[in-house]
């Protein structure tokens, strides 16, 4: 619950951890609230849409469901605010405002201080962090921005001799934890992640079945339901319209090819990072690889990465139990651990 203040008249403090993702964004708060939303924001395109929807702005599932009537934005390109678009910056504000509204309680009203730790891709550029800070101005009282895989590591207390591989939608982030706050040399970001799989799958399926009509939303849903690497468990059969008539297609092989397209870059980066660790600690790091992010739900991913580690002496890959909230929970843990004096320095 709230941590201080209350009856004394001092403002209550709500600490939150936010994982800002390209596909989904999650928030965990010190009052026990946890929520996840699709990272979509949409504005009604005209007067008719406004009258039908009865809202000025729609967020998350609501926005996706009504997308035909909306100027729909996915504001976090590759986990960052896209530059040069005021609408995107506005969309980020709406998204964050919505996330915070989900965890704030009415009882505290305005007499509540919000301290937030926000996770962004590992090598987020300074200018993007600043944009994020600008976008959150007025929404929180104090803000700390950290890398997503670091937030994951902090939440799991994997702070020494560990490697976090966080495969999200827009980016795959890697972070070696050496008992200190990770430097640039400890981290990598690849722009190949879940969205890249979607693109590959879309290209493969549309080129093989040109007679059918596929949307990117359908492709994404199929990936989320059936993605795998390695051996297929069952055939993957999906339905798509051909001249309006629902038709079944087997996309087992296309799904495998699309999902495995990530593997070369991910394994190469993972091994490269391990190789840069002090030699005496490499075995410890290899045996403490943590796979997180939405794409860790790809069946067989952990096993394949573990196989890849055999080439360099073997290791252990652990898949996090709660990939949706592991980043925001880590942010929350960090937010709680930071002393009030530090939060004062970070106040806006």
């Amino acid at each position: 619950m709230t941590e201080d203040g209350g009856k004394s008249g001092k403002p209550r403090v709500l600490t939150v951890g936010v994982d800002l993702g390209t596909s989904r964004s999650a928030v965990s708060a010190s009052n026990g609230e946890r929520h996840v939303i699709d990272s979509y924001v949409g504005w009604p395109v005209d007067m008719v849409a406004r009258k039908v929807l009865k809202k000025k702005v729609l967020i998350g599932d609501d926005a996706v469901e009504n997308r035909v009537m909306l100027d729909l934005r996915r504001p976090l390109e590759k986990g960052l605010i896209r530059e040069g678009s005021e609408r995107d910056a506005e969309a980020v504000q709406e998204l964050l405002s919505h996330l915070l509204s989900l965890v704030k309680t009415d009882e505290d009203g305005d007499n509540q201080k919000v301290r937030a730790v926000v996770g962004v891709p590992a090598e987020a550029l300074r200018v993007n962090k600043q944009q994020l800070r600008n976008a959150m101005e007025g929404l929180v009282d104090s803000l700390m921005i950290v890398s997503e895989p670091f937030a994951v590591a902090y939440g799991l207390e994997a702070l020494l001799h560990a490697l976090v591989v966080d495969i999200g939608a827009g980016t795959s982030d890697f972070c070696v934890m050496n008992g200190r706050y990770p430097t640039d040399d400890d981290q990598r970001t690849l722009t190949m992640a879940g969205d890249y799989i979607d693109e590959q799958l879309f290209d493969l399926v549309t080129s093989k079945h040109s007679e059918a009509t596929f949307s990117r939303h359908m492709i994404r849903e199929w990936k989320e339901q059936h993605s795998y690497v390695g051996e297929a468990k069952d055939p993957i059969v999906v339905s798509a319209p051909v001249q309006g008539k629902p038709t079944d297609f087997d996309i087992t092989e296309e799904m495998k090819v699309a999902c495995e397209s990530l593997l070369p870059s991910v394994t190469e980066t993972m091994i490269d990072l391990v190789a840069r660790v002090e030699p005496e600690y490499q075995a410890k790091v290899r045996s403490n690889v943590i796979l997180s992010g939405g794409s860790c739900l790809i069946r067989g991913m952990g096993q394949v990465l573990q196989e890849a580690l055999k080439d360099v002496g073997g290791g252990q890959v652990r898949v996090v139990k709660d990939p949706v909230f592991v980043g925001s929970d880590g942010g929350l843990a960090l937010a709680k651990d930071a002393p009030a004096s530090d939060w004062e320095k970070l106040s806006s």
Partner: protein
Amino acid sequence: MASLSRIKRQIVRQAVDENLDTINGVLPGIRNDRSRSEITLLSVFFYVALPAAVFALSYILSPMAVGEATDSRLAATRAPVRRAEPVVAEAGVPAESTTTYASPRPLDPAVMPLTLRRVVLDPGHGGSNLGTVAPGGLPEKVITLDIADRLRQLLEDHGYDVVMTRETDESKSLKKRGDMANEAEGDIFLSIHVNWIELQEIRGIETFYLGPTDDPYVTELAATENQGSGYSLADFRGILERVYADVRQKESRELATAVQSALFDSLTKVNPTVRNRGVKSAPFGVLVRTEMPAILAEVSCLSNALEARLLAMPSYRQLLAEALFSGIDSYARELNQAYQIGG
């Protein structure tokens, strides 16, 4: 448990510090090396102490001046990009024993970070000269100008003067670009380009300085980049002479090495498959006319589909600009150290 608590406390403190750096606009790694207040302080030294430095350095460098540096103002501008150590070695005796003028030893070392002051940026191509074009239609000239704009901002934020050979989408001959750099009295010259490689699966970066080459690929690349150079046949003889006997070659190579290294280090963090195609010499027309250390960086490959997609992203272009900045800044710091050792 006590150990974990200690690690946590330390990590939290470091995370807070890093965020404070962001709030204060300090780039990672810069905080301890060169604060804004230090730059401001150095600016004061610049106006107070530099005249004395100019006087002493121009005298010391005169024996190895490249001939055209007779004007003391020009010598002052060129002096910073020369290393003090070779000057002493070539003279064979300590520098102060050869002069009746003020010795450089009393100079405040704080003046030295200003040794590389003015950077000339040359966004490749422009106007009707599109450069290479991505399959989606994105031309090289747009990318190079955008990266140069971003790099300019970074350099200016860190106290460098920047001169651009073009600031808009305009055609400008290679000769004109060299002339502009010389007139601006730039300390270094960086021409920014994006490559096209026949083997389209290759994603590589390479940096060139002026010199001869036997490599047919490099010859072809230079021929492509040299189109519309603005040089006449009469210029050609002089050009060849300079290609083979350019006194700036060592400094240009060192600058190229610093930039190539920074580019490769940055890009491999995003893309481990990028190839380091190295530092090479080549007879690029745009480098011939410049009178300062000059390099041409091929920062990416538009022929590679993934690179082309990345280049369309502002964040990737920003990454390239920051890598170029890092290379230039590290070269400047090495110069500073060389001066302090030699001075």
